[in-house]
Every structure is written in structure tokens, then in C-alpha cells.
């Protein structure tokens, strides 16, 4: 039996009922599901409502509701253990792999429940790709790292088409010029920053709609980080991107919307322009100004 039990709840709940637009006291207590700011967006790719995640008895995510917009970057910030990575992993059902994990609520991808029995998880993870904290290329050649996904998903009819996908993906990930003469070298022979871009190329090779990034630059130097951030700006023209980061400056640089998590609650969501200059909730303010704890 699947380790993850899914209960559907709140699918028909109106988004507006969960949005608090009135001025909020900065001292307002945290109440599960009472996020400050606008959780909805026009034409969302993901629409999540009342998402709870439990690891055994531990209630890791509490009634989180948020939309994820197309062609934009959503940054999720918060202290360690606040649930931001857990929530990210809900979006392509990575939590399925964790024993005792239980996800409750509604997560709609393009209007369809990702926990539907008919949903093929492998297909879901092709549509919702993920880039991890540490670059994790397969122990294969650069070419094979990118070609692997399209091959198992049957995206290329022949070798010429596969070559084209590999070329385009590496090009879009900004890596082609650096590796075009050594495609048969091992992926692990590249530098950290290049390996991370290889992982991004591998992710986009299967035509995803959403790219999830879990602290993608925390193991990289500032120059490699800048290249990834630059790449994110280009990639958002075609994909929705959700990034979990511990760097407030990075969240401010790359995202259009920012979500602040605290002890499993989604405290505040808003335009990045506003969150970093004038957040509405005291907890958000304290965290981003370095007054937390």
C-alpha cells in the first residue's frame, strides 16, 4: 500500500474566503490557514488549498493554501524546519517516498488533483521537475544525463531528435558552449555550478511545466549562483518556478512573489517588491530583518 494517504478536503472552498485583505495587526497571533496577503493568482498552474502534511504524529504543514502562477518565480522562505521544503516536495509528490508521511488537502495542477488515482507519478514528476541543493548528476556522460529523461519518456523518435533535445536543453541551461566539445565526458567531471546547470538541463529536457528548486545555489560560489539566478530569469519565460532559499537577498533578486513559512504555517504571501520593503505580519518582518528567535 502506498505510504501516503490522501484525503481530499476543501476542494470546493472559495479562495476568497481564505484571503485576508484587511489591515492586520503586526502582533496578530498565528492561526492555521489564516495567511496574510493574497494567495490567489490569475491563471495559476498550481492551486493548493488546505494542505496539511503529517510525518507520523508531527504536523509539519498546517492548512496551507496558495496558488502558483505561470511564468513567474515564487520564493519560499522561512527558518529551518518551517515546512517550506516539505511543501515544495508536496508539489511533485516527493513526500510519497517518505514513510509515515501523510498529505491532506487539495493540490491541483492545471485544475487536476495530483493525488488522483489515475495520476501517474512518473509523468507528474516530468511535468513538475526538481533541482536539489547538491548537484546530483547521474554517473554517466554529460550527454546521457540530459538524454536519459527524454529517452524513458519516449520524447525522441530517433537519435537526431534526441541530439536536438540534448542540444536545446544544454543551450537553455546556459551550458552548451562550455560542454559542446566534451559531451561524452562524465557529468561529475564538471564544476559544481556546471553540474547544477546540467541538472537544470536534465530537468527541462522532458518539457516540464513547473521547476521546483530546493536551495539550488547553497553549494555554489557567488559567480555560479549569479549564473543560476540569471538562468532562472530566462527560464521563467517558459516555466513556473518555485524556489526554496535561505538567502533573503536571493529571494528578493529572483522572485516575483514571496511566501513566508513559520512552524508549518504559511504566514504571509505577497509581491516580492512589498515583502522585503514593507511586510504586513510581524513574524515576516522579524525574520527578514534578522530579529527571529
Amino acid at each position, binding site marked *: 500500500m502506498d505510504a501516503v494517504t490522501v484525503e481530499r478536503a476543501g476542494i470546493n472552498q472559495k479562495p476568497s474566503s481564505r484571503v485576508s485583505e484587511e489591515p492586520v495587526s503586526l502582533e496578530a497571533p498565528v492561526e492555521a490557514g489564516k495567511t496574510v496577503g493574497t494567495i490567489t493568482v490569475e491563471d495559476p498552474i498550481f492551486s493548493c488549498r488546505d494542505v496539511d502534511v503529517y510525518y507520523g504524529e508531527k504536523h509539519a504543514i498546517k492548512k496551507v493554501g496558495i496558488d502558483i502562477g505561470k511564468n513567474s518565480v515564487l520564493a519560499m522562505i522561512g527558518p529551518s524546519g518551517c515546512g517550506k521544503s516539505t511543501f515544495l516536495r508536496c508539489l511533485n509528490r516527493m513526500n510519497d517516498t517518505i514513510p509515515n508521511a501523510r498529505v491532506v488537502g487539495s493540490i491541483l495542477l492545471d485544475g487536476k488533483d495530483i493525488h488522483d488515482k489515475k495520476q501517474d507519478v512518473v509523468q507528474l514528476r516530468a511535468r513538475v521537475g526538481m533541482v536539489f541543493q547538491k548537484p546530483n548528476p547521474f554517473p554517466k556522460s554529460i550527454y546521457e544525463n540530459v538524454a536519459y529523461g527524454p529517452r524513458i519518456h519516449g520524447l525522441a523518435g530517433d537519435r537526431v531528435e534526441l541530439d536536438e533535445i540534448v542540444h536545446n536543453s544544454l543551450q537553455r541551461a546556459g551550458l552548451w558552449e562550455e560542454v559542446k566539445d566534451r559531451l561524452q565526458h562524465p557529468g561529475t567531471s564538471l564544476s559544481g555550478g556546471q553540474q547544477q546547470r546540467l541538472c537544470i538541463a536534465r530537468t527541462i529536457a522532458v518539457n516540464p511545466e513547473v521547476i521546483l528548486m530546493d536551495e539550488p545555489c547553497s553549494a555554489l560560489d557567488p559567480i555560479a549562483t549569479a549564473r543560476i539566478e540569471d538562468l532562472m530569469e530566462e527560464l521563467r519565460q517558459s516555466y513556473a518556478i518555485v524556489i526554496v532559499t535561505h538567502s533573503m537577498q536571493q529571494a528578493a533578486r529572483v522572485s516575483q512573489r514571496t511566501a513566508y513559512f513559520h512552524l508549518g504555517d504559511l504566514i504571509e504571501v505577497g509581491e516580492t517588491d512589498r515583502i522585503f*520593503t514593507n511586510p504586513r505580519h510581524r513574524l*515576516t518582518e522579524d525574520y*527578514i530583518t*534578522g530579529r527571529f528567535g
Partner: protein
Amino acid sequence: MALSLEGHTTRAFDGDLSSLHIQAVAMGALVIEQVQLAVNAYSNWDRSTATLVLERERKINLYDAEIEEAALQLIARRQPMAQDLRAVFAIDKVVTELERAADEAKKLALAVLAESDASGFRPGAATAREARALGRVAAVMIRAALEAFDRLEPGAAASVVQQDKEMDAEYANALRRLLTHAMEDPRRLQATVEAAFIMRSLERIGDHARNIARHVGFIGGLDPTATGVLPTSLSIKN
């Protein structure tokens, strides 16, 4: 509700930000005195006080340069966010307003010290009285704005707007009297224009005080239009 610039996990950040704030308040105290001295120098036509104003002006410029450098350093080293970012931004702007207010005060001192035909421009009793009245309102406004800035109370700053209306009325009265005077005796035209510039300088000091109040509101995250503390450039006068 008063805001706090302290409470950071990194205590050195508290120190840097507080020191910036304290420096700006100290500069403000100097500017209040400067305005009072300049008004006294002008209304009493006192050259020694005017000289003192010019000497102190250098100290104000030094404060301006030092606070700007400290603000730049703080942004580079601490990358402040949210209220802290607004505070650093606002402190820098408050300092600019103070420096400009001091410049206006300097104009009064320079009028007294001008070598050419100095006695001809000496204000008569009525003009001196008006300069004192305008100067008093300007000093009160700067003091109120600075107190709000010192205590970081955005709400308190809103009262400065009311005082600015009083200032505008006093300024209009002074100008009306000066114009009447000039029409009665055209030979006094040059002296009248000079006196009008002095009144204008005092009125500008009030505007700088109002802008300081606006910056305090900005630190508190207030919408300037909501508090009525509008920036000068958005005020529409017909």
C-alpha cells in the same frame, strides 16, 4: 506606537543602526539651534551671531557627510530589509532635509554679513517681527518632526502637517505686507525683495520639517497620503 531599531540576532547590527539614528538626531539638534541663531542674527542685524552661524554650518556639513558614509557602509555590510531598510533610507533623507534647512538658515546669516549696502537691507521693526514669528514656527516644526524622528513615532509626525498650514498663513501675511510696503515706496523695492527671500527661506525650513515628518511615517510603513503627510512634489497648489 514607537518603533524599535533594536532586537536583531546580530547585536552589532543594533549598534550600527542606533548609532546612525543617534547621529542624525544630534545633527538635528544642531540645526534647530542654527535656525534660532540665524533668526536672531537677522532680526537683530547682529554680525557676530551671523558669523557664528557660518562657522557652525561646517559642522553640519561634516555630520551630513559622515552619516551618509555610515549609511552606505551599513547597507553594504548588513543588507537591511523591511523596516531596517526603510529606516536607513529615511535617516539618509532626513539628514538631507536637515542639511538643506541649515542652508536656508545660512542665507539669513549671509544677508547680515553681505558687505554691499548692508545697512540698506536691515529689516525694519515689522519685518524683524515677522522674521521672528516665522522663525519661531519653523523651529517648532523642526523640533516636533525631530522628536517624532527621535522616538520613532510615525503618528506624532502627522502634527507637523498642521503646523505647516500655520506657517503658510504666516508667510502669506508677511509677503502681503512687504508687497504693500514696496508699492507705497518703490525706492524700497530692492530691500523688500531681499526681505521676501528671507521669509521664503524660513518658509522652506518649515517644508523641510514637514518632509522629515513624512520620512518618519515612511519608517513606520505608513502611506504618506493616508496620514496627510504628502511629499512636497505631490502637493497641488492652485
